């Protein structure tokens, strides 16, 4: 199916080869959202949204509940296919090669994707291992960094919401992919945990990574580092 779609794209691209290529040259590196329209059922959630996040940039998606923050994040990681508009990663439409785009990003929803019956360590092992062969030492270091050493053997079902968040942070620190998409990264975390989120993000930006964070709280970062996008309801 994807092959057929690609074939069509290739055919069309051949028809108008020059503009396509030239556009690629002129794109800056990073993530760019162009004129994005999205409906959820009958609701027109995102209306012609356009934003560009360069390398080393952090976008804070703010707005009240139901304004479409999560929808925007899910569209930005290519899960939702926009009705119109484009999503560009380093100048290329991500829907042309989704696997490549996906291997450049990590998305953490407002619930950490943990199996209730597995321990924190096992969860981390399976989650990170799908993408990276990771040694036991690195795993332990990451768990220790998020303060999870003491309870890393406990089944995720017994962990508090904040502890589950911390496991997600450990995965984040292990999967150093360029693009982080974080839904409510600071929710349920104590003060130290929130500072940890800030530190992780700052390190990531310093490496040249990109962060899209959707939250109606403030991000634990200096304001100067953050680009703010305010979504409004309705």
């Amino acid at each position, binding site marked *: *199916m994807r092959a*057929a*779609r690609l074939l*069509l794209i290739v*055919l*069309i691209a*051949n*028809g108008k080869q020059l503009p396509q290529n030239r556009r690629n040259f002129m794109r800056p590196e990073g993530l760019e959202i162009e004129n994005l329209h999205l*409906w*959820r*059922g009958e609701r*027109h959630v995102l209306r012609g949204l356009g934003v560009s996040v360069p390398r080393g940039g952090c976008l804070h998606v703010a707005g009240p509940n139901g304004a479409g923050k999560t929808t925007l994040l899910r569209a930005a990681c290519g899960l939702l*296919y926009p*009705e119109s508009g484009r999503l560009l990663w380093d100048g290329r439409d991500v829907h042309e090669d989704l696997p490549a785009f996906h291997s450049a990003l990590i998305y953490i929803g407002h619930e950490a994707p943990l199996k209730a019956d597995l321990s924190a360590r096992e969860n981390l092992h399976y989650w990170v291992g799908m993408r990276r062969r990771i040694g036991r030492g690195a795993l332990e270091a990451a768990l220790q960094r998020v303060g999870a050493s003491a309870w890393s053997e406990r089944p995720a079902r017994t962990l508090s919401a904040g502890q589950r968040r911390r496991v997600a942070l450990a995965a984040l620190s292990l999967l150093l992919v360029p693009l982080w998409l974080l839904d409510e990264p600071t929710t349920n975390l104590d003060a130290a945990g929130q500072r940890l989120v800030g530190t992780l993000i700052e390190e990531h930006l310093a490496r040249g990574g990109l962060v899209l964070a959707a939250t109606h709280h403030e991000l634990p970062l200096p304001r100067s580092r953050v680009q703010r996008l305010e979504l409004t309801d309705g």
Partner: protein
Amino acid sequence: MNWTWFHRLGSPPHIYRLAQQLTPWFAWPAAALILTALYGGLVLAPPDYQQGDGFRIIYMHAPAAWMSLMVYTTMAVAAAVALIWRMKVAHAVAASCAPIGASFTFAALVTGSLWGEPMWGTWWEWDPRLTSELILLFLYLGYMGLRGAIEDPQRADRTSAVLAVVGIVNVPIIHYSVTWWNSLHQAPSVMRLGKPQLSLPMLWPLLVMLLGFTLYFVAVLLVRLRGEILLRERSASWIREVVGT
């Protein structure tokens, strides 16, 4: 290569107007052909030497069975196109097909059973074609059930499209396996349903009837399609134009 025809094919307003204009061009010929075939089949065609006048059920059973398969194929092809090119109009076509196909599959089962009673002496025989038809009805019902169970219209479109494509891959396998199964268990004395030796005066009404029903299907599809396009359309300006408020 010029792709404008392809884009126009995917443009809902264009298709809507086209459907509106084309409907009578299919509907009236369909009516004329079906009436002609009815006269030919019921009056002009001679009785079959074996089945007497009973064979005339074929003029209803065969078109119904033909519709059941043709509509399913149309639905699956439209679904595949819709999935590959994300074409809304193709989703609308697939959605329009299901109720038409399901009702004719039902008709094919009833007429098959009505034919079976005088020929076999029983209302239901596990004849391979009737059995396949029954499974086809279940496939239609599953498709409509799935579509009805999903609230989000886009997801309903795309999920049911996957099912339609999976179904069409399975239809030949199901038919083959049912035929194979039937050949193992069949009592040799039972007469197989269908295909009496048709002479020309018997054959032409059947062919005309099949053509008539095909045109009829297109006409009904076009009417349904307009409704399905309207449901999927976001642009208020041309909806206003069409609905005329």
